[in-house]
């Protein structure tokens, strides 16, 4: 028996490897998880090597993946000859996705286009790394300078060159609340942090959580909103260009406030996702939650998609967090063009869709964000998003730290470490010292 076993095993192995290879080469490239599309349009099996465009993102589930699918449909209608390869990789706030992208770029095998947050995440990482191409020609030929807000252009440019196409805008500074809990506790929506602390006393007296929070990145999100509220827009912006001193008394006071705010959050925060934390407000366990406006999509979206199906204004309310009225702290998902993209023309075709009215109107209502363009049809959006569109047009615009606008990766990561250590010991002085050190080692204070 053993005589035959070795050859048999070898043949077995070879077969399997061969099968494996065959499977990889023959299997049609996985279209995005858009079952409708797959059933309606069978994958073309043309002999000629079709033109592809490979787009990398971290949109793999929920409204964001559905929104991406809508945009891919728009792309497909205009570019029937180009096969769209959706290389989305999940990972909380794109973490795994970033490791995959970084290693691909290191290996010199970039996707044609990838998702990144507008601002320093793109400028400080990919432009500095000479990984992406300027898009000025595209902006001119498509006339996007006229339809994108003036405040946005400098944030996505380095020198005179524009490097990315923003698809959407999210607002980071929103305070979501449960109207019933707030009314039962007999408090007004606070507009200063002092009012907020007073309100917390009443809410906590009613045995409710005052402010719900989740895992660490949501704490950073809270921190940036508190910094903005306490320092004001100008001084907040100064933190990121070196004109505001991280060691100043104003920053000390703001961090003290942040410390006090942390005293009013749920004790299990580090174990909750942002949805878990938002759900505490929806369920009436907590009064407030400070989180970006993707919460609106979660609250008001259809229950079959895993959302809560609440009525905006009834099941939940929203207000600017204390001290940030009239300021719009934004973040934007954008797409870039890879240097040495394997299919540059197809990539440009994709970017055209990303920046187009049609593409953004297809994507944003599904994703639950507003268009980066100012000419989208407001009727496509729900009542919260309509209010956000108005604010976007009129408010002072500042960038979000947590979501890549204001600080490059290194600086943000150092702040994240400092924050994590602070969450362990709640030592404000040590925290501030670490932030000052971060600014000089990786930030604008170098």
């Amino acid at each position, binding site marked *: 028996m053993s005589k035959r076993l070795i050859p048999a*095993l070898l043949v*077995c192995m070879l077969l399997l490897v061969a099968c*494996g*290879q065959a499977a*990889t080469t023959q299997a049609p490239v*996985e279209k995005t998880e858009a079952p409708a599309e797959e059933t309606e349009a069978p994958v073309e099996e043309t002999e000629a090597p079709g033109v592809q465009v490979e787009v990398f993102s971290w949109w793999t589930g929920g409204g964001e993946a559905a929104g991406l699918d809508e945009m891919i449909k728009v792309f497909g209608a205009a570019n029937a000859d180009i096969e769209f390869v959706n290389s989305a*990789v999940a990972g*909380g706030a794109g973490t795994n996705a970033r490791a995959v992208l970084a*290693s691909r770029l290191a290996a010199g095998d970039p996707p044609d286009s990838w998702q990144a947050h507008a601002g320093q995440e793109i400028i400080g990482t990919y432009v500095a790394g000479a990984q992406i191409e300027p898009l000025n020609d595209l902006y001119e030929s498509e006339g996007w300078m006229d339809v994108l807000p003036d405040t946005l252009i400098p944030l996505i440019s380095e020198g005179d060159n524009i490097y990315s196409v923003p698809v959407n805008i999210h607002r980071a500074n929103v305070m979501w609340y449960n109207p019933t809990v707030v009314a039962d506790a007999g408090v007004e929506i606070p507009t200063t942090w002092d009012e907020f602390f007073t309100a917390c006393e009443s809410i906590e007296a009613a045995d409710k959580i005052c402010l719900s929070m989740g895992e660490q990145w949501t704490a950073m999100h809270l921190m940036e909103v508190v910094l903005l509220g306490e320092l004001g827009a100008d001084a907040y912006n100064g933190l990121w260009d070196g004109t505001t001193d991280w060691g100043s008394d104003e920053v000390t006071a703001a961090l003290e406030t942040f410390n006090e705010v942390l005293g009013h959050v749920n004790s299990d925060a580090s174990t909750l996702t942002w949805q878990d934390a938002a759900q505490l407000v929806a369920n009436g366990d907590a009064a407030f939650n400070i989180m970006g406006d993707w919460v609106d999509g979660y609250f008001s979206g259809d229950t079959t998609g*895993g959302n809560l199906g609440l009525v905006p204004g009834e099941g939940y309310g929203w207000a600017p967090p204390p001290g940030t009225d009239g300021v719009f702290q934004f973040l934007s998902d954008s797409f870039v063009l890879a240097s040495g993209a394997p299919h540059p023309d197809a990539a440009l075709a994709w970017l055209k869709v990303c920046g187009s009215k049609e593409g953004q109107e297809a994507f944003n209502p599904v994703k639950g964000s507003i268009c980066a363009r100012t000419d989208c049809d407001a009727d496509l959006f729900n009542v919260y998003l309509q209010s956000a569109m108005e604010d976007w047009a009129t408010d002072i615009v500042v960038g979000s730290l947590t979501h890549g606008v204001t600080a490059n990766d290194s600086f943000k990561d150092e702040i994240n470490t400092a924050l994590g250590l602070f969450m362990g010991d709640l030592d404000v002085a040590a925290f501030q010292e670490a932030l000052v050190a971060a600014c000089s080692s990786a930030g604008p204070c170098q």
Partner: protein
Amino acid sequence: MTFARRFSRIVLYALLILLSVSYLLPIYLMLVTGLKPFAEVNLQTMWQLPNRIAFDNFLEAFDKLWPHLRNSLFMVLPAALISSMIGSVNGYIFSKWKFRGADLIFTLILFGMFIPYQSILIPLVQFMQFIHLRGTLPGLILVHIIYGIPITSLIFRNYYAQISTEILEAGRIDGAGLIGLYRWIMFPLSIPGFVVVLIWQFTQAYNDFLFAVILTNTAQWPVTVALNNMAGSQIVQWNVQMAGALLAALPTLLVYILLGRFFVRGLMAGALKG
């Protein structure tokens, strides 16, 4: 049977049942959540049975995972088989044909087992790109085989160390050389060792996420990456996710149920003894 003995039996079984229940708690949680419609998924009611059993989660998860489940099998079977073969041959040489310096080389190979994979990702990706195997299943297979060499060689070396050398001696008298001895004598005796190594490598390669996410593209993703991708950064449908996790665990579970007894036997026969 005396009363004392019967009593101790009852205690024994009670203890085992209690332990089994606690080992199954996380599985119960995954199963129950996997059967719930999303609206019912809630931390406070996680222990409750679903009001309405929703098999659709399993169907949905299966739909999304199936092509990747296939990738996983195409990847894991050759990876486990080839690395077992290599480990077996290496173990044979390092236990029975020690050339000068063999022990040192074996020790150096063994050290490879302890390397933290996260730290070598960048050179790994660059190297795989250099040999044009990044983004292919054979490339992923190769990586699993290579990083499997230390442990498979160790297990087989220890296993073969228990096999009497007299039997080899007899083969040698009959004129068999190095290859002949392996083929006619060692290999047929290796089956219990193979079971242990195959199970170990199958589990490792099948459950691997890190290498897969870094080294493959969408079309070649194994099931672990696809499973992870079912979660977006916004909404995570925990019910579908848990259903998917259970589906993805089926192949390994099957291997354990079918080969479990041989696993213990293989370990008994000397694999993994110090």
